[in-house]
């Protein structure tokens, strides 16, 4: 329940997170309560086990990849700032944001950044290319044991063929964007907050 949860989050922190992620004050306090309730060890940071404890996430075929996205390279703990930064990718895009100050940098929830998040789900070794092996690995996670290796192989080959424009048998980020240019990323990769 976190009886002192909201008091551990200082106003300055909330303001900083607001600026960085664009979440509102009430959304930040709500998400802090959630962070606190997931943090069983009560040490201000979440580990991979804390995420695995969510049953709906544990049964998600891509659960492990999604959890990985929260942890920066080589680290085992994510603090609240990191948690919010990752969740910020899924904030819906509001119209009035499109006219904001361009020098402020691209917001975390821009279409580009949403696509980058999805790209990184496939690009396991972070070399900015989705190789055939990486694609196969993710496909295997999604289908389990229900499709044979050969079958999966031809699906992977076809997908790469479709997307690959420069002939390097890999999908780069720009090729990824091109293939998915008609997909409504803003809607499909956003979470609708009720408040």
């Amino acid at each position, binding site marked *: 329940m976190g009886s002192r949860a909201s008091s551990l989050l200082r106003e300055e922190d909330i303001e900083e997170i607001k600026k960085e992620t664009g979440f509102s004050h009430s959304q930040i306090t709500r998400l802090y309560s959630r962070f606190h309730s997931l943090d069983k060890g009560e040490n201000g940071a979440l580990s991979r086990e804390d995420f695995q404890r969510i049953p709906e996430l544990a*049964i998600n075929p891509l659960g492990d990849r999604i959890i990985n996205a929260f942890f920066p390279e080589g680290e085992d703990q994510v603090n609240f700032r990191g948690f919010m930064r990752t969740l910020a990718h899924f904030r819906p895009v509001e119209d009035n944001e499109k006219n904001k100050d361009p020098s402020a940098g691209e917001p975390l929830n821009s279409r580009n950044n949403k696509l980058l998040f999805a790209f990184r789900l496939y690009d396991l070794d972070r070399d900015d290319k989705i190789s055939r092996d990486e694609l196969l690995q993710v496909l295997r996670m999604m289908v389990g044991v229900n499709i044979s290796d*050969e*079958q999966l192989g*031809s*699906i992977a080959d076809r997908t790469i063929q479709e997307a690959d424009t420069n002939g390097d048998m890999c999908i780069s980020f720009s090729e990824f964007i091109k*293939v*998915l240019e008609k997909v409504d990323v803003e809607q499909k*990769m956003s979470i609708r907050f009720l408040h």
Partner: protein
Amino acid sequence: MEGTSWDLALVVFEVWLSVVLGLIVLPAMFGVSLGFTDLYVKALVKTLEWATLRIQRGQKEEDAVPAHLPNGIIEKDDGSMEEEIGELRRSHPKSLAGGDFTLCDAFYFCKKGIESIVEDQVTQRFTSEELASWNLLTRTNNNFHYISVRVTIIWGLGVFIRYCILLPLRVTLAVLGLSWLVIGTTLVGLLPHSNVKTWISDLIHVTCYRICARALSARIRYHNKENHPKKGGICVANHTSPIDIVILANDGCYAMVGQIHGGLMGVIQRSMVRSCPHVWFERSEMKDRHAVAKRLKDHVADKTKQPILIFPEGTCINNTSVMMFKKGSFDIGATIYPVAIKYDPQFGDAFWNSGKYNMVSYLLRMMTSWAIVCNVWYLPPMSLQDGEDAVHFANRVKSAIARQGGLVDLFWDGGLKREKVKESYKEEQQKMYSSMIKGRLPSHERQDCEV
């Protein structure tokens, strides 16, 4: 000097005991209500309403942070996997030659995963429910800051009343009630088997539970008493805390089912079974499903024995939802009498978070709450229909209870409180997704994928 202070203490104690006995225990045993609890609850309701108004007024001046969101934090799409992925693919130029996979399929799993990180249906069931407005107990004080002097004074008064007046009273009652149970049942156990013995045994059980109910300042309302469980049947109810037993047994006698414990619990269990048959298991026996089923069947077959009381969830849930019912009790072939119990969290949170509090701290928390107010609905009896299996029957009963109590009907297992979720659920998801890819393959390749 020493002598007189001890005498004084003794006199005070005697007066105290006679007041308690005369005004509470005796009426309780005869099922007579002197109306104290009702008055108390009415006064409480007025006080809490007043406090709520003051708090709301105070909050309007600050940044209004909604403390309690009954519908959750986020709005989720209700579509199935097929619908959602179908929508994703609609905007993507499909190549007809290949199997039906597109890179944007991952978006579906990604979004679902992130949604479950922000808010999921299961983990929230194992902690106490959040209140819409503060009920002047420190333990529920989440987002409510200092409001005004008056609210703080009332809160302080509340602390004094609860800890210094109500707590000693309640502890006395609980001790009296349990001692009465142990002594009474042991004495009755000495009698030979007869109708008189059963009648006295029932009386002792009911009076003990009535005293215990007073010990919690419980105000229970029973609905549809005509559906009260009958002998030879099994009563199933949703489980929130050990207090459920007191709540239900106030209105009738049940045969309890459970594991034999050591210590005080064990003493109580062993004396109870001397006067009337309960179904206690050794820990080793619990693992053997057939042995358990056999004992339950034997008990149910004997029409002179009281109906069995079982909580099929197997663990305490926080009274906002009903989780998976274990099918064991639904396989016996007896008539099931479903009962829905709903506590009003405003007066005291009855949920036992066994990971956080042990039994003693839990009982102390119960006895320092305002009161336990709850509603009990007896639902019409249900039995296994033709061609129905135990799992389906269990789900049917679960839905009926959830509907009556206004609780969320979940298929998740209450055991997830402590254990990991079964791999088979993930495998189901994978199978579903695979059928979406397989389905559109050209025929010569379809033979390859039969794994």
